[in-house]
């Protein structure tokens, strides 16, 4: 059977269905205020949160439309209504220019169509309509309740900045811009979602990023036709290269420093309004094992912890299956004393090792899920009860063996060692088929599972970047920032991603050398 996967791009995107609300609105505003107001009132009927405020500027009718809670009403009163209602300040003969000069608002824009009006109102900009003019003013007085910048909950660390992204896109872009000040940092806005009209920003550093990659990402995002975007995961699933793979092909982060580091490596960031998680693309398998603190602490410890992560990746993926394989098929492999103690603890257990392992893994997964989803107070109770029931009562009752409990708990701990949650999820899923293979074919089954996994990973690409690069593609300096973390002064070049871009990151010979003296160091 031959399966030909079409790239997401090749699917010809259907024309966007014009929904009834936005169909007739791309028409210019009416000169008559009454007409415009009637239109907006019929549009926003049964919407108690949309406010209309009519008043007079001099002798002209005017009206302000805004949404309650999205706009700064205090400032609207003080800087707009107060000024406009004061006849002395407004020169009626030249209303346009005097408006521009009398309203102390930095973000004041002229808009001419109904569509733009609706967009601005929805974004929280009050819209000022004046009788006799075909243009309206959008007043940049957005203010809505948002979460303050807090420490990122999903990616905490000991050393390093403690700011995390929030749900507000404006704050997030500002956090990145505050780190990378060069104008080469670009932020391209896109809009996705027929109803949510979510703002999506594609951010990159010009000159470091492959332009075809950028084009591809934009094309893939533009192709999305969905009613709403609620989280970065929505975008992620639509732009992946291999939609059926369990492995994440896009990374997410809620740390501005991680995002900036990836920007500096020539990757593209997709920031989505309404979620603190920004997407990073393209990524390789090995970048899923990097954490920001590898770079903030000394490189020895960074290297050690990286290796530890790879070791425990293998543990969390294969330990239960290796245990099943060894106890079922290869008892001779275990040293005699250990074999005796395992055998004695398995003596009364009524299940074969494979059933035991699958049972325990399921129980562990259930416990973990219960702990995450429940309210905190109940969650801890669940984990205590679960740990007691599974860990002790089951062993004492002779239903499961103690070594199996140890194996499952080590596996659980190992899966927490991987800094990216999304790859941990993939590994949790893959553990089960591997246990089954090990139960049938022993260690050979485990090896076959490993090979199949490897073939899958070798087939994967993230936006054209081979998933196993740079090690499997044997690029120059492949080991420098993958399994080991070499000192910063040695990482002269950026990782090779797709395309031909300048990879020089810093000057060479930056290794600190006291003997040379300060003047000669950086030649």
């Amino acid at each position: 059977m031959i399966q030909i996967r079409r790239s997401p791009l090749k699917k010809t995107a259907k024309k966007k269905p014009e929904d009834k609300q936005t169909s007739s609105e791309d028409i210019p505003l009416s000169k008559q205020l009454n007409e415009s107001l009637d239109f907006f009132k019929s549009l926003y009927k049964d919407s108690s949160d949309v406010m209309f405020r009519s008043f007079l500027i001099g002798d002209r009718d005017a009206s302000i439309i805004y949404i309650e809670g999205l706009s700064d009403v205090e400032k609207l009163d003080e800087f707009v209504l107060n000024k406009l209602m004061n006849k002395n300040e407004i020169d009626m003969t030249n209303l346009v220019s005097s408006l521009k000069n009398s309203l102390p608002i930095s973000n004041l824009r002229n808009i001419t169509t109904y569509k733009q009006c609706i967009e601005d109102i929805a974004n929280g900009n009050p819209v000022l309509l004046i009788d006799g003019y075909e243009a309206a003013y959008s007043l940049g007085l957005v203010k809505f309740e948002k979460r303050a910048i807090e420490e990122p909950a999903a990616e905490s660390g000991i050393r390093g900045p403690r700011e995390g992204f929030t749900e507000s896109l404006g704050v997030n872009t500002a956090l990145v811009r505050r780190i990378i000040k060069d104008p080469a940092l670009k932020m391209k806005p896109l809009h996705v979602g027929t109803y949510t009209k979510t703002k999506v920003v594609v951010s990159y550093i010009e000159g470091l990023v492959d332009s075809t990659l950028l084009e591809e990402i934009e094309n893939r995002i533009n192709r999305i036709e969905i009613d709403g975007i609620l989280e970065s995961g929505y975008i992620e699933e639509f732009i992946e290269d291999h939609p059926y793979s369990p492995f994440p092909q896009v990374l997410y982060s809620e740390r501005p420093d991680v995002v900036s580091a990836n920007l500096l490596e020539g990757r593209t960031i997709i920031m989505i309004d309404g979620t603190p998680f920004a997407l990073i693309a393209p990524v390789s398998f090995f970048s899923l094992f990097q954490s920001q603190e590898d770079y903030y602490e000394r490189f020895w410890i960074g290297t050690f912890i990286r290796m530890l992560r790879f070791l425990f990746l293998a543990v969390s993926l294969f330990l239960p299956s290796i245990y099943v394989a060894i106890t079922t098929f290869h008892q001779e492999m275990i040293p005699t004393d250990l074999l005796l103690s395992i055998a004695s603890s398995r003596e009364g257990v009524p299940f074969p090792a494979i059933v035991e392992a699958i049972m325990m893994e399921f129980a562990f997964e259930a416990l973990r899920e219960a702990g995450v989803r429940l309210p905190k107070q109940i969650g801890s109770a669940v984990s205590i009860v679960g740990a007691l029931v599974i860990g002790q009562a089951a062993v004492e009752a002779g239903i499961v063996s103690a070594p199996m409990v140890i194996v499952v708990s080590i596996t659980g701990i190992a899966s927490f060692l991987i800094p990216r949650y999304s790859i941990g999820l993939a590994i949790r899923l893959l553990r089960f088929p591997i246990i089954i293979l090990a139960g049938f074919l022993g260690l050979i089954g485990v090896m076959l599972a490993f090979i199949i996994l490897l073939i899958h990973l070798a087939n994967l690409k993230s936006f054209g970047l081979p998933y196993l690069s740079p090690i499997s593609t044997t690029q120059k300096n492949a080991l420098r920032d993958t399994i080991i973390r070499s000192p910063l002064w040695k990482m002269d070049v950026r990782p090779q991603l797709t395309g031909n871009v300048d990879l020089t990151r810093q000057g060479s010979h930056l290794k600190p050398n006291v003997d040379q003296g300060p003047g000669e160091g950086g030649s």
Partner: protein
Amino acid sequence: MLEKGRISTLQMEFIIVPAVLATSILSIPAITGRLARHDMWMTPIIGSITGFLIVFIIWKLHQFYPKMTPVQYMEEIIGKIAGRAFGFSLILVFLHRTGISVRDYSDFLTSNVMLHTPELVFTISMIFVCALAARGGIEVIARTAVICTALFMGTAIVLLLLIKDIDITYMLPIFENGVLPVLKGGFINHSWFTDFFFLGFIFPFLNNQEKGLKAGMRSSFVVMFIFVYLNFFVLTLIGISCINQFYPVYAIVRAISVFEFFENFEVLVTASWVLGNFVKFSFFLYVISLSLGQLFRLSDFRILVFPMGLLLMFFGYWDLPNLVASRKYLAQIHPFVMTFFQFLLPLFLLMIAIFRKKWREKRR
């Protein structure tokens, strides 16, 4: 072009080394030891001359026809009909020798690791996995090979734990029976080194064509080094009695015991050896499917991978009733078949190619 992928020279080395090594290390000193006795450690050095020669021949042919695989340039060199006939028989030989290697692999597992599992289970599962990789093309094979080979070769280090047990005197006296036995043993080794002929199927897909020769020579040297390394440990540990073992290398790995704790490395070594075999079989299966696709001018070789995998299985079980017969074949028939198809054939091709070029220049 059936294959659009490009791989690096390092990836090429990671493919070709296990392709030569993986199954031959099973039987290595057992066959050569029978001929060369305690001089067996020298036989790979003799055999590797072939390796270097073949790499050079294939490289020269590659320079004449830089974008073609051997099956393709064979038609250019010796004409359409003869070229296709030889190409087809070459594919049959590949099928046969790969089938026998897969058989060797399954034989080993069923007689050493999992005694109660039917042999066919290992054959089918391995061929299925290899077919998955072969369908991905040379790039996927190369990427998996890097990691598999690294793990496979890495476990060779455990033999160093045997250093405390070796006895160098087993190697003496050198050349007790003259040079001839060593040359005979070298001939067996030579048949394994002819596998470097498969480089001809990688050279056209290198992204850095100039470095191909050097990388090929280097991998030939690596293979020789590992053969000598294994021969040395087998000889100094169990002496000439290794010729009575079916799997001498496995036997010495089982003997590793340090502090009563670092034991039972044989399972670890076997597991990593499975990875090496996977690289070998997937690459050979890929070469078979690709060359058949090129021979019959197909637009895609992928449809051939699974049928060829099935054929491999049949070739492995056909006419080889048991391990003894397979060993006899490896010692007595295999070297000559390999010499003809993987050494003399490319040599003749090169000579004709050079002759034709000279003749063409003369006519001009």
